[in-house]
């Protein structure tokens, strides 16, 4: 099995299984076209912890816990658990925060962009074009010499901090303590935060995905980056497999349940807006930030599970970014069908638009100035 997942088929099999499970999670209760969305789910966790107070997006998603712990289990079984940290943590934190803001302007991470497309939401095409553009800019910056500094090996306890944190979140999700008057672990009663599979189902699926992700190195950003940078298609097969199996599973679910799981259009899509420019620009920012940080949100969770403290800082940056995204109304507002039948097109507020511009400026400055030779005296 060790050889299998490093082979050409590793990412393809992992992507195929993730696609099927993600589509099934919608059947089991997760929001439409959101069986798995790392950005949305971390945003929901931020809400559950009260880091933002958008009542529609608060739920302690066990999938995220599962992704990290599944990766930890795989890394331990295959002797790949390597505690390491120390590569420009502050830059990685901010890359995480801006990646989250960009993703929430679109309303989804790259995984959800694929799942939205698999459900017929054509707005995802703009997001995927934006993702490719952002990653392309990142590749140009890397060709120009961009690199964050080196990580160094750390004591075991450092590698265990993120898995430990996830066990803590799981305990909060199970026991739902109330810390005082109006101080609970928040859980939405309506909106996407209220739509979720049973805790144990979400956790088990998360563990399986985390295990597969760690073994196969599945990464949506890496798929595009390796293609642009090296002409390498190793990871791309996994991304295509996810899209195909999620689509096929949606067709089977439509056929067996009588409920439509695929509806091809730009309009009236679940938890989505049809503001084309900002779907593109939001994901361009996210794609650039993922590229500069070396992984899509899912990959960062898998890395943090195998002991990578820098990936863990990126994840925490995303969760804090989600807090800002809702506290300052930066996230995209979904399209809304009004009572008179007219459609109110959503998208980010002016503050969200400014945040995307600031994020792009931050990424470009970092990408143009962070060089290995600045710290080591050689390229």
């Amino acid at each position, binding site marked *: 099995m060790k050889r299998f997942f490093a082979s050409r088929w590793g990412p393809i099999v992992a992507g195929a299984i993730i696609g099927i499970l993600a589509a099934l999670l919608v059947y089991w209760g997760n929001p439409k076209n959101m069986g798995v969305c790392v950005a949305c789910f971390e945003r929901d966790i931020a809400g559950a912890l009260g880091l933002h107070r958008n009542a529609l997006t608060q739920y302690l998603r066990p999938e995220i816990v599962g992704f990290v712990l599944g990766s930890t289990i795989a890394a331990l079984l295959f002797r*790949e658990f*390597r505690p390491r940290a120390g590569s420009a943590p502050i830059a990685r934190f901010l890359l995480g925060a801006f990646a989250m803001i960009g993703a929430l302007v679109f309303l989804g991470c790259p995984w959800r962009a694929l799942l939205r497309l698999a459900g017929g939401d054509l707005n995802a095409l703009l997001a995927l074009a934006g993702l490719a553009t952002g990653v392309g800019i990142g590749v140009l910056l890397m060709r120009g010499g961009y690199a964050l500094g080196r990580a160094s090996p750390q004591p075991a306890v450092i590698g265990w901090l993120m898995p430990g944190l996830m066990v803590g979140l799981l305990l909060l999700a199970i026991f739902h303590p109330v810390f005082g008057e109006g101080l609970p672990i928040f859980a939405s009663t309506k909106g996407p935060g209220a739509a979720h599979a049973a805790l144990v189902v979400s956790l088990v699926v998360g563990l399986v995905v985390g295990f597969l992700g760690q073994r196969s190195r599945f990464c949506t950003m890496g798929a595009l980056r390796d293609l642009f940078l090296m002409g390498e298609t190793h990871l791309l097969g996994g991304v295509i497999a996810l899209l195909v199996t999620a689509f096929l599973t949606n067709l089977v679910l439509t056929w067996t349940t009588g409920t439509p799981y695929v509806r091809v259009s730009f309009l009236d899509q679940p938890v989505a807006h049809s503001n084309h420019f900002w779907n593109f620009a939001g994901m361009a920012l996210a794609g650039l930030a993922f590229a500069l940080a070396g992984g899509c949100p899912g990959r960062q969770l898998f890395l943090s599970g195998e002991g990578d403290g820098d990936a863990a800082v990126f994840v925490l940056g995303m969760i804090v970014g989600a807090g800002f995204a809702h506290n300052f109304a930066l996230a995209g507002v979904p399209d809304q069908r009004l009572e008179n039948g007219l459609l109110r097109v959503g998208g980010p507020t002016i503050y969200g638009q400014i945040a995307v511009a600031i994020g792009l400026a931050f990424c470009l400055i970092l990408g143009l100035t962070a060089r290995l030779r600045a710290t080591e005296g050689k390229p």
Partner: protein
Amino acid sequence: MTTVVDARGLACPHPALLTRQALRRAGSGQVEVLVDTDTARENCLRVAEREGWQAEVIFEGSAYRLRLTR
């Protein structure tokens, strides 16, 4: 003379990128790459294979030494 690329501690895609750079610069002979994660090891070996180099992996406790020859 053996070129040594120290890619320890570097995140994706830099180990693979530095390896490709070194292999193309050397053209033939021996290039050694030091990496300290399994992902970097796999990526660098994939690069070596695509560039037509033979690889030998030596495990050195906390890192892998990839001895690439052509």
